[in-house]
């Protein structure tokens, strides 16, 4: 069964830019990446050993040490905790006799925490050897552990029926549910794959395609909202021997899972969108960067790509257009939120640690392998197909003036119907709460746009979702008044940023942790008024970080201070306005321990 490392390296043509793929294959084969193998990889790819170590040690799902025959990664996002993760975790620990972060002595089971895995609508969820297990309960945990004891293969461990739609596909066979609650142009079944490639592209010049996209006024759905037509035009005009289209399917923002649903239900729409983008900018290769957590879709997606090649929707002279060659490959990540940042995504695809680049130059000028590259979100690329099919003007009629079209919202948290809703831009938060079946009298806050977005209270629920008001990549987390906002949400999100910083910037590497410590101090009733001011000031320093991660890492704390200041004020000590933060007793104890003396504090 074991593939030889040599075979893996040869499979990727001894190409050092494919280091990620090599490591992914070794990790999945061995359950870890032993030192002798990293040495062999370095030798064969003709790079330093530290280069291999640098990439390997960056990603959460690569490990230097064995992760167990069954490696269990339990999602640690705020919503997972809201849905009962703690009991699930305790059951895992009690039944296996180990704590999270460890492997059982017999090497059978490894228990690990992991950042949001894109299943917020069916939490608590975990990945076991790459398979997704959703809606976990202590009972279910015991069943799973019994199956493991019986030596069952992970594929045989599902007890519920497979999920809906393509989740049942022979090549997916997953219990994941789509939870599509509202359809629009993107999720609509009314779509014939290849229709734009066959019917529209042959009659249009690349410039006309770009013009049509511009007319639609569509802006990027990945969060930043950059006008898509303009991005394509920049790339088209940039000089380069080769150009690339990247689809950003990293979807790491906690609470976002709409791209998962598109990848499951409308992958052909996505691929067609990439072909259109390729035609428009003059690219020959497309790469879909898929987060590691969605590896369960790999065979299914690969198979569809092959199908598209067979039908001349990919490959040479696509759609009968002479000289139009374009193909798509998948690039998997290995667990790093920052790789969703477009330049980190490119670095990662080149086999490196996912460290964002300095911009300028932007990817449209110098992207993948130094060539002009378009990076677009999954949803953006899907929307473009509908734009070309029905015209830019048709598309611009949906939504609001500055935000045209529809948006897929990932809604989770305290509501009856968590899932994916395709709504026109301009929906108010209030409408969404109603639609998702939230008990409005009990909702105390909504997290808009994930941890990097903002936490808003009821007085702002009439605000609308659009770039001019509440811009969002699509995640909405509903939080009712049974939750402790600062502990359950704000602290969890701050910890997320501490965990996910690439560490390059002095600011982003340190300040989120310092803010976290200060928040804990306040939660622990040791805070003073100055601590709140400090948090606000420190948060400002983060704004000079290199990428969006650092720039927004203070947002959970900053937006909650802004909108829920009373929660902080309630917790601080009112009679104290100066705090040395020095604990004499603790210091004496530590020094006595070090010196081997018995403390005498009298």
């Amino acid at each position, binding site marked *: 069964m074991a593939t030889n490392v040599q075979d893996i390296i040869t499979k990727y043509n001894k190409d050092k830019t494919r280091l990620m793929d090599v490591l992914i294959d070794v990790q999945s084969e061995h359950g870890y990446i032993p030192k002798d193998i990293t040495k062999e990889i370095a030798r064969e790819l003709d*790079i*330093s*050993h*530290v*280069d291999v*170590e*640098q990439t390997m*040690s*960056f990603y959460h799902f690569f490990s230097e040490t064995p992760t167990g025959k069954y490696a269990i990664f339990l999602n640690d996002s705020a919503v997972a905790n809201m849905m009962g993760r703690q009991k699930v975790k305790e059951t895992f620990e009690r039944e296996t006799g180990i704590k999270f972060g460890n492997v059982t002595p017999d090497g059978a089971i490894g228990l690990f925490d992991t950042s949001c895995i894109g299943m917020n609508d069916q939490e608590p969820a975990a990945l076991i050897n790459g398979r997704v297990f959703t809606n976990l309960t202590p009972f279910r945990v015991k069943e799973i552990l019994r199956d493991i004891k019986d030596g069952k293969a992970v594929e045989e461990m599902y007890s519920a029926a497979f999920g809906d739609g393509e989740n049942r596909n022979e090549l997916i066979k997953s219990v994941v549910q789509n939870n599509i609650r509202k359809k629009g142009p993107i999720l609509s079944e009314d779509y014939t794959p290849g229709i734009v490639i066959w019917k529209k592209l042959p009659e249009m010049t690349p410039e006309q395609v770009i013009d049509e996209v511009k007319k639609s006024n569509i802006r990027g759905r990945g969060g930043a909202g950059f006008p898509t037509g303009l991005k394509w035009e920049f790339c088209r005009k940039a000089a380069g021997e080769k150009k690339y289209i990247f689809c950003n399917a990293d979807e790491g923002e906690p609470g976002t899972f709409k791209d998962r649903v598109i990848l499951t239900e409308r992958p052909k729409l996505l691929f067609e969108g990439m072909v259109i983008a390729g035609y428009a900018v003059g690219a020959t290769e497309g790469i879909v960067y898929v987060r590691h957590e969605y590896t369960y879709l790999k065979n299914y997606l690969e198979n569809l790509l092959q199908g598209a090649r067979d039908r001349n929707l990919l490959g040479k002279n696509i759609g009968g257009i002479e000289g139009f060659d374009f193909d798509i490959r998948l690039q998997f990540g290995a667990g*790093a939120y920052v790789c969703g940042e477009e330049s980190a995504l490119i670095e990662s695809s080149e086999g490196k*640690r996912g*460290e964002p680049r*300095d911009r*300028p130059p932007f990817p449209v000028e110098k992207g993948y392998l130094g060539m002009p590259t378009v990076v677009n979100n999954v949803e953006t690329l899907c929307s473009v197909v509908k734009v070309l099919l029905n015209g830019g003007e048709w598309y611009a009629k949906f939504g609001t003036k500055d935000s045209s079209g529809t948006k897929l919202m990932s809604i989770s948290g305290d509501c009856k119907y968590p899932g994916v809703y395709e709504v026109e831009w301009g929906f108010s938060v209030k409408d969404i709460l109603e639609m998702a079946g939230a008990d409005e009298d009990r909702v105390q806050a909504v997290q808009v746009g994930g941890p990097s977005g903002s936490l808003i209270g009821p007085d702002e629920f009439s605000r609308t979702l659009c770039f001019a008001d509440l811009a969002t990549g699509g995640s909405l987390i509903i939080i009712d008044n049974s939750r402790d906002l600062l502990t359950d949400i704000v602290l969890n999100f701050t910890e997320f940023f*501490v*965990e*996910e*910083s*690439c*560490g*390059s*910037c*002095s*600011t982003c*590497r*340190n*300040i989120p*942790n*310092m803010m976290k*410590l200060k928040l804990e101090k306040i939660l622990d009733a040791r805070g003073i008024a100055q601590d709140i001011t*400090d948090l606000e*000031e*420190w948060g*400002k*320093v983060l*704004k*000079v*970080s*290199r990428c969006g991660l650092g720039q927004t890492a203070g947002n959970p704390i900053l937006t909650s201070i802004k909108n829920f200041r009373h929660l902080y004020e309630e917790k601080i000590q009112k009679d104290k306005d100066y705090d040395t*933060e020095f604990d004499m007793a603790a210091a004496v104890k530590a020094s006595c321990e070090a010196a081997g003396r018995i403390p005498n504090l009298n």
Partner: protein
Amino acid sequence: MSTLVKFKIDGVECMAERGTYIVEAARENGIYIPTLCNIRGVKPRGSCRICTVLVNSRPMSACTTPVTDGMEIINDTPEINDTRKSIIEVLFVEGNHFCPSCEKSGNCELQALAYRFQMMVPRFPYIFPNKTVDASNPKIIKDHNRCILCKRCIRAIKTDDGKNVFAFKKRGMKLEIIIDPELGDNFTDELAQKAVEICPVGAILPREKGYQIPIGKRKYDQVVIGSDIEKK
């Protein structure tokens, strides 16, 4: 055709070759923008963020951003300088910097910047991390306590055939610098010396050498960092 571009720093008209990084362009015009991770002649990587300026009201790292025609750059304001000062403080508290006992004292750019920005007590709590000293290399000592992760060594030190000797390991707060055991063991004297010189702090020190220049006579003992640029 002239390739000179005109731009303004704090309202002062400046000129430089198109494509010059703001830091360099400022230097040519006698304006000092503090830098730490930047080294002249090596491709920049905006890591420390101390060179942050405002370009069209947006914070940008001056060491990585090229000047363009008509650019308006804001450099010397109380707010920006306080941000810079807080970055210096962050770097002090995240490591273990005991200047009086450090061989680099007086030649250290971090220390020099702390003097320039008149850092007294850092606003951030000391982390006192548990860090080690790696003395496994035959020519240099790597002291993780003092490393500010500026990436200079990674970027500047390569073997003759262009291979990396230094690299990052892990990420976030766990980030550290590692040295390739094999390539590091075969360091030439010149490369080892270059590594020592390239490090802005006392994180890479030569073995069996030290205090060749007495304290008091070192680079920043006499002059404020950046004053050479401002004098021009």
